[in-house]
């Protein structure tokens, strides 16, 4: 995709985003707690699915207490959080059938992880500040108040780790961190599972690689190996052996 079409694409995306403000956010799992976050500091309201602040996932008492303390804390200032939201939205846009970073509640996830992992706090806070400094130097406005074309020009400058320009290295490090957070935060939601086509994490019976997949990869199971493998039709028959260590059931 050429740079100009990328920008045009993104402008269309922003229109879609505006439309999203009026419609329920995609992703039933997260939308149940969805509500709007409208920043006065941002020219264009940005909203995202709010993530739950109550979780039940087999914690010990001290773990429960730790989570509660993290949720009671607020780390990012509003401007920082909105900047993260705009950046996440550029990294994984909303104009997709499986939703994007905002539908997956990315800003809330980044906020939580920053509190959970102390070593993220400074790179994230400092990264947002660097982004604003760079944007002010080049376009006379902070990142979220710059035009979409200007925002994308900044991202183009810092989105590729092979760029050698020393002055850009802090921005490149920050963008890489934000790309990691955005993708991990998205693909660990129901939206991300759908986007990937993930089908595991459920009781099933493993009976080997499907035949058509084996064929596609030019692989076969050799007959001798298969004699050592479980016959799934007999899995519920209680195991018995003869004295020579042979399974006989």
């Amino acid at each position, binding site marked *: *995709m050429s740079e100009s079409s990328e920008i045009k*694409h*993104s402008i269309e995306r922003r229109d879609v985003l505006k439309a999203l403000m009026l419609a329920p956010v995609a992703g039933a799992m*997260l939308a149940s707690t969805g509500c709007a976050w409208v920043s006065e500091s941002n020219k264009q309201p940005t909203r995202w699915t709010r*993530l739950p602040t109550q*979780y*039940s*996932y*087999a914690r*010990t008492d001290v*773990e429960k207490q*730790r989570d509660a303390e993290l949720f009671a804390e607020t780390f990012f200032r509003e401007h920082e959080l909105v900047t993260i939201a705009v950046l996440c939205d*550029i*990294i*994984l*846009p909303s104009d*997709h059938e499986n939703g994007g970073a905002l539908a997956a509640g990315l800003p809330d*996830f980044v906020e*939580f992880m920053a509190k*959970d992992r102390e070593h993220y706090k400074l790179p994230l806070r400092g990264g947002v500040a660097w982004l604003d400094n760079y944007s002010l130097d080049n376009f006379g406005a902070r990142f979220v108040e710059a035009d979409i074309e200007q925002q994308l020009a900044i991202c183009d400058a810092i*989105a*590729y*780790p*092979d760029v050698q320009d020393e002055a850009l290295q802090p921005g490149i490090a920050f*963008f*890489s961190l934000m*790309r990691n957070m955005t993708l*991990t935060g998205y*693909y*660990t*939601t*129901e939206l*991300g599972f759908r*986007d*990937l*086509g993930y*089908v*595991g*994490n*459920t*009781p*099933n019976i*493993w*009976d080997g*690689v499907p035949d*058509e997949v084996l064929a596609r*990869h030019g*692989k076969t*199971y050799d007959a001798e*190996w*298969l004699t050592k*493998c*479980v016959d799934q039709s007999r899995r*519920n*028959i*209680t*195991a018995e052996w003869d004295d020579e*260590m*042979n*399974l006989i059931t």
Partner: protein
Amino acid sequence: MADKEYDIIVVGSGAGGGMATYQLANAGLTVALVEAGGFYDPAADEQRTQLRNPWESPRRGASTRRRPFGDYNACIGGWDLDGEPYTQKGDTEFMWWRGRMLGGRTNHWGRISLRFGPLDFKRRDIDGLGENWPIGYEDVKPYYDKVDKLIGVFGSNEGLYNDPDGFFLPAPKPRLHELYYIDGARKLNVPVYPARKSMLTKRINDQRGVCYYCGQCSRACSIHADFSSSTALIYPALRGGKVDLYTDSMVREVITDASGKATGVSYINKKDKKEYALKGRIVVLAASACSSARILLNSKSAQHENGLGNSSGHVGRYLHDSTGASRAAFLPELMNRDIYNEDGVGGMHVYTPWWLENAALDFPRGYHLEIGGGMGMPSYGFGFAANQYNEYLGKRVGGYGNGLRDDIRRFYGARLSIACRGESVPQFDNYCELDPTVVDEWGIPVLRFNYQWTDYEINQAKHMQDSMEALLEASGGILLGDKPGVERNYGLAKPGEIIHEVGTTRMGLDPKTSVTNEFGQLHDANNVFVVDAGTFVSQADKNPTWTILALSWRASDYIAEQMKQQNI
């Protein structure tokens, strides 16, 4: 129950303690099972992490200090416990993992269940290093056989001399990346076989379920289809009515009388913070190699000035862990692969046991290879460096936008990894001892570690790296990351990091150079036994659990027999 005198007090509920409890209670003896952590059953929904989706955790399964292997890992414990420190001497970097729960570390282990072979008990005869065990494979074989049948282990009989056959359940079929490994290994004439692991691919009784292939054994199984001490041994023992379970009970010392024999243990109830005593005719320590050593060293009396069982000064000595190193590769042939459920059992379906002769190599002792890869469930960390493999395709790394979705999809599951686990040579100078000044929050002196790898392990790690490179490339992989060189000990894991620490109360014939006899019975007090991996004379290139179970059963039979004969 304070005035009750038990026949047996078992300290610790992991593999060794679970087996001793099960066997001794079944022999009709009354047992107090004392565990420093809380009750645990993965079948209880409030303790179930299995089959949870990543978004059920606010950190999406990321690790924490309290769950170093991730939010959903079953093990409550870790390297760094609240209020229970340990210290290091000099530049030692020993990592000590402790489980604090019913079943201990058997709740999260890899279930790799390998018998030691005939050579593994007699290494000194082969290379002149370390010490022979006072027993041989023929002594332990009947117990391995019984453990196989009682607990269940899949695998295959291959007739390998030092990787003996067993009573195996059938193995799961290899996954696609494992087929690539099999072909790669065969090209290099490296053998590869079905893995040997204690998950029930077939029913063994009416109490435990049959594996439903979620691949999450590390989260503990809610249908009890994998082995953990609690699900396979302790719950059945509790149902027999002979066992009283004391949880959240931290044993401080073994109490001895004027004759030097044990009369029970003292412990701190973590709930009310008070100290209590339990009376017993026999004390069986199974708190883990280092924790049992710590209890013995803290059990000082006029009769046992250096700590119980330590007249030889050998308690804590010969501490050793498995060696470990790993490497990964990008497998281009698995790009854009078909997506289907290949969760299988937790971890590998195939493995390579040690296949070379050390006489031709510059290090003693071998290692086995564990194979990893596949289309795992996304959790925290998934998508990091999403398109780093672009550099091998002549495409640019980085960027943003919906194209990242294609990158994620293209590279999903296109990875093959190998982890090596090997045998180190036990050293007298690698040991744990009591720190002279530091205590834990219960006021109990803590352990201080002294441990350095030798050239034996470092040279072995170098060989591991060469083997992994050759095998990954033969499998069609493009190696990832740099090959660690001598400056990083060839990627050799820190001591303790593989969580196979053994040897601190080793068994032997000579009371001057060993702590227990072949049954784990202290030379210095005949009614105190050790049934964890502390008694191991050497580790073998095998995971220790199956041998802990076999030796604990063997010790339990001996205890019951000796009590019947009124010898103890």
